[in-house]
């Protein structure tokens, strides 16, 4: 008789070979963390530029945001992994993950930061200027601190999308959780338990962040 896709011995195989999944989980967590830092750095820079009054700063920001929001992450990652070597630049796959996912989500973070800055009333800037703050000091000491409550929930949401999108590494043999699970299952055909365990591990990373966003949205809805 043909055993079902979720037969007990398949679960036992997953349990016995758990380091395969643990290694992938570690890679996914590390790529997510580094990509998130990159996305925040890019997003902060481009977000401030996008909210500025200078056309020379806003133009390049629009190009960055529109390009990366309207083209697939997969294409961008394939370009880094398959395209750049033709120009003599071979990046390790881990770096492809961090750069690809970080730059892609940086475009979304930039829009969140820009919206946050634009939500701070103009009077705040004028008041800061009247106290002798220059533009940079105004941004860092007056405007940005006030955007925190507006930008944190969407930023956490973006972090969830970012973690999920690190699975793009599975398409370039990146050794992340999705890749580890899929190549393990492709070897022994124990797809069922492998995918369930993988799903649970992603939930473990993403669900706490999502719950936190929900709570924040509820409290701000009450305050509003």
């Amino acid at each position, binding site marked *: 008789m043909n055993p079902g896709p979720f037969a007990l011995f398949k679960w036992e195989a997953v349990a016995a070979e758990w380091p395969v999944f643990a290694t992938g989980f570690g890679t996914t967590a590390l790529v997510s963390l580094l990509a998130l830092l990159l996305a925040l750095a890019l997003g902060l820079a481009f977000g401030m530029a996008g909210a500025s009054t200078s056309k020379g700063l806003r133009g390049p920001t629009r190009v960055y945001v*529109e390009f990366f929001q309207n083209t*697939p992450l*997969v*294409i961008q990652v394939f*370009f880094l992994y398959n*395209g750049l070597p033709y120009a003599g630049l071979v990046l390790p796959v881990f770096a492809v993950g961090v750069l690809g996912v970080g730059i892609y989500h940086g475009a979304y973070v930039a829009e969140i930061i820009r919206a946050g800055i634009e939500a701070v009333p103009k009077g705040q800037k004028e008041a800061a200027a009247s106290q002798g703050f220059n533009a940079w000091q105004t941004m860092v000491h007056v405007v940005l601190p006030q955007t925190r409550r507006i930008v944190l929930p969407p930023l956490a949401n973006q972090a969830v999308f970012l973690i999920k999108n690190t699975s793009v590494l599975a398409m370039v043999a990146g050794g992340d959780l999705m890749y580890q699970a899929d190549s393990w299952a492709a070897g022994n055909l124990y797809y*069922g338990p492998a995918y369930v365990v993988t799903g649970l591990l*992603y939930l473990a990373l993403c*669900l706490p962040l999502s719950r936190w966003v929900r709570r924040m949205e509820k409290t701000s809805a009450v305050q509003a």
Partner: protein
Amino acid sequence: MGQANGKDFGGAGMIEELLQLKNLVFLLQGLGVTLLISAGSLALSFVFGTFLGVLRHGGPFAAAKAASLYIEVVRNIPNLLFILAVRFLTPLPPLAAAIIAFTIFTTAAVAEIVRGGLNSIPKGQWEAARSQGFSTVGILVHVILPQALRNMIPPLASQAITVIKDTSFVWVVGIEELTGKGMILMGMYATLPQVFTLFSLLAAMYFAVNYGLSRWARLVQVKA
């Protein structure tokens, strides 16, 4: 590099060779598959997502909880996992499997958009319609949803863009959509100018569709 195949190909000649009509048609066929998967899953998700969103917004307790559980679980797991799971755990043909996988995922996203849309309609609308003798379903269909839909256009459009971009993930299960067709061409035209032209072309095709979609949504939103 310019001496590939022993012929005196300049970069321009190589690019011309890549951009011959046959290859452009090949890519457009891929775009057709991309749009087919996107449109099919978006249409299905709109139906299921509206149903789920309405249940979560105001359904009976158990149904609202079940809808909520589905949405939370699906939204915190990478789409790629559903693509792989539906492909390898069901007997569906590849294209149908891809549409189902995207429907599983997008239904949850649409449900959240619908819930947000419903929340944006003041309670008074319900009370007014009820006083006129409408049934609950009647109020929903004739009074609430048409108004909510207007607020849902921008997030629905950005969800559609997300779906179109993310269909590039299905190349992993061998479906020849736009990204897949592009990668097949890359295997045949493996020189620096050709590969870079190809990536630019792929990005431009996705960009044209997605940017057009987002512009159109903004136009409709302003008119509505």
